[in-house]
């Protein structure tokens, strides 16, 4: 067992871990932040996407020992001071979800993508989101939402 230190949504966390646990288990089970979802366990679906140092990753594929000193953001950390993030607002206004199970991962992947690609084209959004799966079929609306958020984000968020 070893001590692993990182921040989750801005708060410092220190856990006694083996190191081989997945980041998904750390977030969902040990820290009980359940907005991040298990979908496949192989990094194939994107439901577990979170940000590590502002980069979107599949938390099911990350080992706990590799998050030492990192800044992690999950869906719970996206809104600030009770106000929804522009991506969350756009997902609501475009109704870019149905069952909602892929939604956290979609939003986090979109967040990581928009941080790297402000105000992107639809074509670029599709490439950036391609590896996230939605079985309910909300893809077109998700692209619409990211397009809207891409225009809003630079106004509200420091890039």
């Amino acid at each position, binding site marked *: 067992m070893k001590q692993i230190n990182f921040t989750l949504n801005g708060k410092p966390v220190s856990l006694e871990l*083996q190191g*081989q*646990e*997945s980041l998904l*288990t750390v977030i969902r*089970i040990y820290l*009980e*932040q*359940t*907005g*991040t*979802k*298990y*979908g*496949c*366990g*192989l990094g*194939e*679906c994107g*439901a577990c996407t979170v940000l590590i140092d502002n980069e979107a990753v599949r938390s099911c594929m990350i080992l706990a020992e590799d998050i030492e000193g990192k800044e992690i953001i*999950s*869906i*719970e950390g*996206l*809104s600030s001071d009770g106000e*929804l993030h522009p991506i*969350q607002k756009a*997902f*609501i*206004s475009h*109704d870019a*979800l*149905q*069952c*909602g*199970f*892929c*939604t*956290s991962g979609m*939003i986090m992947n979109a967040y990581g993508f928009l941080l790297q690609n402000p105000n992107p084209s639809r074509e670029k*959004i*599709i*490439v950036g*989101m*391609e*590896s*996230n*799966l*939605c*079985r*309910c*079929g*909300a*893809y*077109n*609306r*998700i*692209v619409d939402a990211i397009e809207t958020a891409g225009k809003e984000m630079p106004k509200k968020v420091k890039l």
Partner: protein
Amino acid sequence: MKSAIKSEAAYSRRRFIKNLGGGVVVVFCLGEVSFSSLFAQDGQPLEELDFNAYLRVKEDGRIDCFTGKIEMGQGIITSLAQVVAEELEVSIYDVDMIMGDTELCPYDAGTWGSLTTRFIDPVLRAAAAEAREVLLDLAAEHFGMNKTSLEVIQGVVSVKNDSSKKITYAELSKGKKIVRSLTKKPELKKAKDFKLIGKPIRSLDAEAKVTGKAKYSGDIFLPGMVHATIVRPEVFGSKKVKVDASKLSDFAGVQLVEKDDLVAVVHSDPEVSQRAAKSIKIAWEAPIAKANQETIFQYLEDTIQDNKVFESEGSLQLGEETSKVYRKATYHDGYKAHASIETHVATCYFEGDKVTIWASTQSPFGTRSSVAKALQMPLEKVHVKQIFLGGGFGGKSNSQQSIEAATIAKLCGKPVQLVWSRKEEFMYDNFRTAAVVKVAGGTDNNGKLKVWDFDIYCAGTRGTELFYAIPNKRIRSFNQAGVHPFGTGAWRAPGNNTTTFARESHIDVVAHAAGMNPLDFRLNNLENKEMIATLQLAAKTFGYDKEKKPGHGYGIALGQDAGTLVAMIAEVFVDKETGEVQPIRIVCSQDMGQVVNPHGATLQTEGGITMGIGYALYEEIEFNGGEMKTTNFNRYEITRFSKTPKIECVFIDKMDAKPQGGGEPAIICVGAAIANAIFDACGARVYRMPITPERILDALS
């Protein structure tokens, strides 16, 4: 069955009234009223209906609406609130939906078959209308005036022409406990008076879902809870011979649970329970493989002997003799997974002899009875709680994971969470069945269909009633229990995706052989006026007469499901060198009667079409007998962002009609619309789904 439903309904009603707080309550229960048949629609046997509803106007003026249905993304949490708000004259945001909790909600068999809007909706409207009348009676008494001189706006009753005299629903309900059972059909609003029905309303649960706050079965954590991992065989249907759990001592704190073929380990840390489970070696006796994904079709044809004639008229021989053009073909469709992003999950705990379960199930009441039966407990000792589902599509209709979780919880004496892995999901999903459809069709010199012979293996007859006028026809359904190497079950519009693919592909085959274009050929043979109007709306919206770009093709498919008529036109691009298909756009026109929430109906249609592209082009389970080769999304391609075409949904305007199904119908036409568009684009007629690049290149060579 019917009496069982009655007794469950009566039980839940008694319990509901007993636990009731104050306010105005309207109760509707199947079997306790004589007018239930008024709500039945053509062709729906009454015993399949279970439209119970409770509605409570609380003392704070908010409305609790109780239904046994569940929310899995299909949007009824919004559309049901919408109809209640309409009849009660309140804001939709004052309605709280309480769904699928077996101790709070009225009995319901399950959320499937696109039944909710067709059957629960009219009942909730009736209950809401009755509640409105009760509140108006109270207001009339309060003001000492006749009810007809009052009006309600947003939960406030006022005297017409005297706005100073008003009283809220909250004030009227305060200190009251009025329980009404519906005994006559109340007066429902006419379409011309609708304020909410027919208006687009965005999903009411969206904010909970974009913030990660929405709770699913795996998001429940209980004090002292352990995570269970079940040791599974590699082959479906295997029987346990011998268990070697000697390595389990390497894992501190794990507990072994064993009952019959169920072997599981539990630990407070899921990572530990998963590793510990891997250390257990079980010798299994596996059933002998009889088919794989290539041989299954011949196997089904050879094995199944029993058939039932579903529809028959005239003489097939006469039809063939009078046909100028006569074509036969056999269509194949492989097994498909439901592939919800949420796997099957159950979290449960025992308190004394009673178990409480949160489960991803489309049938909370079915889960209650299955768990009670499996664990030999009385029904009232099993409580299934309300929870969101991360997708269902028919795949969460059974109760296996709940029985497993409850069994493990009972044996280990701790609260248990069981989350199926994606690999387990790909073994115990009750797949959409593989199927064979043998079709023969012919036309005379005028392009009129004279004969139709349609033999269906395994896909059933849902939606196969012919809407084309054909004098000589026969539809037979071949099926046999236990013929599949693993479980099969309902998959969004069961069977209808496969049979619509076969019928509408073959209509095109015959049309082309007769030298007619597929649109004219269909219009020439349709007898159902509503279907003609639906197809014409699709063709007009699509611009079917527009010129195509090189390599592009258009494809039409018609179908019917859950009372709704569907006409779909797809445009695709096919790369002739690689066989790759790019869906470009799809227009879907539907006659679904009254469209309660056009926005919600659009979401369902878009979703169905997007999902449908997966079964048409990519999805196929690979297996050898019960041994699954497909174990995760890396071997099971579903539709992605880049393959989603532009989608346009249009509805026939029928606001005074009864609402019909919306969750399933659109998806049934995707296979044939894509297949026909591929043929139009490149001349490849592919008779097997998924229509892969290899199959397109084979058809071209």
